[in-house]
């Protein structure tokens, strides 16, 4: 079918086809290209196809080219497969694995560092808490000792004061008692003096008795 199409194309006497036919036969003019000679037509067509295989079939379906294509495909594809499977792909695979190993190791190291940091933070915080607790303990202890000391001192001072107060009170009481004992004598002397001024001398005993009698009333 394809050949027919070409034959028709070749018979159409256009300028281009003329050139075509001339080219194909290496400069020699083809008389058939202008006319309608069937043999000349096929000749021109096959020449236009490259002329390697004179079968005139559609090139991809030309069995004459199959052995060559199969052989060279087998050789080239075989070489490609060998190079890929033995050299290129293992190498790229190694590069990727190597990178993955490095990245994983780095990530693991980072993770370890992070855990170390976390541990350090935890240790710091527990130490801080410890120190704080200890400081509070020391503060409490100090406060208690100070308070105890203060209480003891206050107690001593208070006891001292109380002793002094009671001593003073006792002294006041004795002074008062002494004073009171002297009141009678003063009264007697005063009474005697007053009486002596008014009526002359009187015995001291009677005056004393009278004062005692008066002070009892």
């Amino acid at each position, binding site marked *: 079918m*394809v050949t027919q199409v*070409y034959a028709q194309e070749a018979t159409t006497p256009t300028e*281009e086809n003329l*050139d*075509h036919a001339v*080219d*194909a036969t290496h400069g020699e003019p083809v008389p058939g290209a202008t006319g309608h000679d069937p043999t000349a037509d096929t000749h021109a067509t096959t020449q*236009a*196809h*490259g002329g*390697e*295989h*004179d*079968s005139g079939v*559609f*090139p*991809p*379906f*030309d069995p*004459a*080219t*199959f*052995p*060559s*294509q*199969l*052989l*060279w*495909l*087998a050789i*080239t*594809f075989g*070489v*490609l*497969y060998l*190079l*890929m*499977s033995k*050299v*290129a*792909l293992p*190498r*790229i*695979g*190694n*590069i*990727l694995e*190597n*990178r993955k190993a*490095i990245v994983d190791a780095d990530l693991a190291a980072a993770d370890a560092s992070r855990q170390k940091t976390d541990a350090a933070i935890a240790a710091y915080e527990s130490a801080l808490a410890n120190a704080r607790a200890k400081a509070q303990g020391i503060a409490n202890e100090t406060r208690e000792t100070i308070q105890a000391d203060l209480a003891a001192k206050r107690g001593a001072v208070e006891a001292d004061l109380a002793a002094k107060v009671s001593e003073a009170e006792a002294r006041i009481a004795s002074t008062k008692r002494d004073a009171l004992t002297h009141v009678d004598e003063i009264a007697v002397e005063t009474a005697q003096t007053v009486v002596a001024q008014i009526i002359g001398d009187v015995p001291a005993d009677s005056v004393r008795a009278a004062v005692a009698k008066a002070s009892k009333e």
Partner: protein
Amino acid sequence: MAGTDPIHQFVIEDMIPIHLGGDGTAGSGLNFSFTNSSLFMVATVAVISLYLILTTSAKSVIPGRAQLVSELLYGFVANMVRSAAGTAGMKFFPLVFSLFTFIFVANMFGMVPYFFTVTSHIIVTFALSMLVFLTVVIYGFVKNGPKFLKLFVPSGVPGYILPIVAPIEFISFMSRPISLSVRLFGNILAGHITLKVFTGFIVTMSSLGFLGILGSALPLIMAIALTGLEFLVGAVQAYVFAVLTCMYLNDAIHPSH
């Protein structure tokens, strides 16, 4: 080149003739010549191998741009294999990787003007898909023994439907190398023909004078759009081929689906 002929780009030309057997006349015996197709196969393999091997030779822990591309390619295909065929499928990783990079780079080479597209020939795509198919069949039987046939007996299907389902499964399995090869071949062939036809329109129309030159802007726009599309198709078809390979390999590794 041959003007606007859209088929000429697929012609295989001998560069170093190697003929075996035959009686010396043209067309007899086997032609193993080093051709333009062989040249681009060699170029494809050389580009892939040199790039991957040279960019990774430093083995840097912190990759440069070139090494990163290799690593991303590795990771892309490795993830594809692992997600479709599991960790057990990783023994086929070099195969899938070679297939993907070979088809991808061959398709990209095909997008360069005057370059030959290796994957535009059915025999090449068919050979690659037969490689996958035979790998699946041989590995499937070696690893699973007769249990590999469970592939054709989907679990949970009642016994009386099996006579219908099993042949369907078998036919779909046997048609895999054909669908796999024709998909790639067809996409690349059709794309290159379409591109060539549209670019041919530009040449034909511009020879028609001023209006023709103005009108040739339309096929030019189409050709530009198609070029972008063909790059996409080339990449997607390489990906599709690799993904389907992974899925077929998964059948060989875990036949009871």
